[in-house]
């Protein structure tokens, strides 16, 4: 489509076609008005964009103001408590580490496995398109629905109970679409001529994947996995559904222990009417945000570290 045709095309159906061709002929006051409009719009667009920045600032200020004083060594070392002064985040902190620790290998294998299958092995047929469509729709399913699935499938049907394993499995399914999409993108960015070079030397498909495709795409894959995990760390609803309890006075010792995680502990505090608990919630949020921020920083570090010139 040529540019002129495109413009005509885009004007079709508009009540008053803008008389673009008359621009030069109009008197300067009209042009001045249009320039003024443009400047106003510029300001409005900029302000709108700044809303995001302001909100982030307000949010951080809110959390820091409410919670900073409550981030103490005791806060890390104490379990949940009826008394705000004695309440801490220890069980939730370790619970989060446990859940994420089990989620990492599961997502890694399933996510990358799926991505490799779709990019390297699958033929472009109906079945493959079906899997792809399925994955993109799964990405849009609300997390609470994954919670319902986890509750029914893992907690009840599989008899895992309200345990770390059930939580990790639910989280894995939840973030799998994100990991798959990121991994596919990374894998498809590997130039085909590297694959051909490998095949031409008599390498098998799997040797080519393992020795050429995966090393090349690993930074991109890792970035995607980390971002997905940081989503998992902040998820509350699915774990609430599978019954992660918030009043736990121990750290999980093994994978079939009951557990709580930081967002649930925070939710529990937020739901308490007393103001002190709001401070605890804010303190918990600070820890949570610190974890997320360091994970994101690590992802950015990976991206830059491996963003070499030859890619």
């Amino acid at each position: 489509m040529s540019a002129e045709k495109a413009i005509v095309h885009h004007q079709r159906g508009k009540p008053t076609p803008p008389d673009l061709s008359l621009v030069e002929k109009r008197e300067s006051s009209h042009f001045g008005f249009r320039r003024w409009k443009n400047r106003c719009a510029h300001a409005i667009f900029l302000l709108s964009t700044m809303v995001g920045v302001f909100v982030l600032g307000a949010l951080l200020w809110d959390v820091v103001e409410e919670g900073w004083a409550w981030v103490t060594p005791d806060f890390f070392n104490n379990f949940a408590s009826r008394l705000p002064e004695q309440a801490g985040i220890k069980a939730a902190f370790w619970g989060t580490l446990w859940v994420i620790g089990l989620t990492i290998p599961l997502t890694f294998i399933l996510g990358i496995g799926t991505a490799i299958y779709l990019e390297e092995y699958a033929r472009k047929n109906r079945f493959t398109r079906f899997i792809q469509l399925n994955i993109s729709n799964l990405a849009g399913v609300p997390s609470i629905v994954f919670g319902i699935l986890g509750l029914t499938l893992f907690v009840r049907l599989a008899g895992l109970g309200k345990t770390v394993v059930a939580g990790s499995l639910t989280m894995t399914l939840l973030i799998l679409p994100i990991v798959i999409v990121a991994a596919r993108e990374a894998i498809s960015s590997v130039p085909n001529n590297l694959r051909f070079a490998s095949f031409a030397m008599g390498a098998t498909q799997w040797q080519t994947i393992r020795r050429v495709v995966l090393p090349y795409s690993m930074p991109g894959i890792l970035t995607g996995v980390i971002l997905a995990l940081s989503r998992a760390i902040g998820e509350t609803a699915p774990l609430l559904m599978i019954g992660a309890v918030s009043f736990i006075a121990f750290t999980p010792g093994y994978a079939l222990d009951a557990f709580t995680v930081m967002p649930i502990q925070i939710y529990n505090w937020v739901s308490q009417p007393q103001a002190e608990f709001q401070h605890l919630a804010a303190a918990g949020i600070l820890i949570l945000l610190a974890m997320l921020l360091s994970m994101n920083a690590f992802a950015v570090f990976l991206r830059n570290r491996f963003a070499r010139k030859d890619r």
Partner: protein
Amino acid sequence: MKNHSLATLGRFRRKRTLGRVWESMIPKFLLACALVSVLTTLGIVGTLLKETISFFTKVSLFDYITGTKWTALFNEAQQSFGVLPLIAGTLLVTGIAALVAIPIGLASAIYLSEYANPKVRKVVKPILEVLAGVPTIVYGFFALTFITPLLRTILPDMGVFNAVSAGIVVGIMIIPLIASLSEDAMSAVPRSIREAAYAMGCTKLEVALKVVVPAALSGIIASFVLGLSRAIGETMIVTIAAGATPRMTLDPTDSIQTMTSFIVQAATGDHSFGSIAYGAIYAVGMTLFIFTLLMNLLAQYISRRFKEEY
């Protein structure tokens, strides 16, 4: 010479080795990985369907769809299962979120795609990414401890739990999504089209609104639909800030209940598995799933069907 050719006979013949077996197993294993996501979908649909059907053997589907009273967690004598109040609550919050997110998201996208210089983009885009990565529990806290008190200085009569505060924050949550997807759509509009308009003396605003936005319209609308689908499924913000009062209302200062916050309320209470109240989790879950699925499919349809060809 003859010996030579005899010696090499079968040189390329396939041999059954461990490596061969391994090589043929791998695609099967990877296919199994890929099938996990298909099974997940089947699992979601299956569990929802099974429990929902058994729910509707006890509760009339017609009453569910048309009823205006939702008291699923009351004792059995007073139970009423009309889902409309939950849908109304969900749509109220989503509507408020749309009022916040669509103008701001679109304006941000226009700014980033048409006006911003690379330096500004380099600062603003990561901030939007961070905003997109903030856990919803944190947004819920923000709604309850920042937005609600702020609103209550203007509307002193408003309760602590209300739809507007939750709606605003849900809107804030989906701004980055709408902004980045719309910006992608606008960036895909070829420069030549813009240049043609500039060459005719158009201002940036005219180029943006009369050329770029119309050209990218399908992608932009798809981003709205996806954003609103996300708003419908959002759970923690509404659970924390919007209250737990299922009611048919259009008053944003009222306390309401959404589908998602009902599910949380029912699942975290102690209702025994198999009770009608418990079954209601699945019926509402199914309703929610259908809503979001239809919107996601709609978004995909729009962006594919009306894809501009440059």
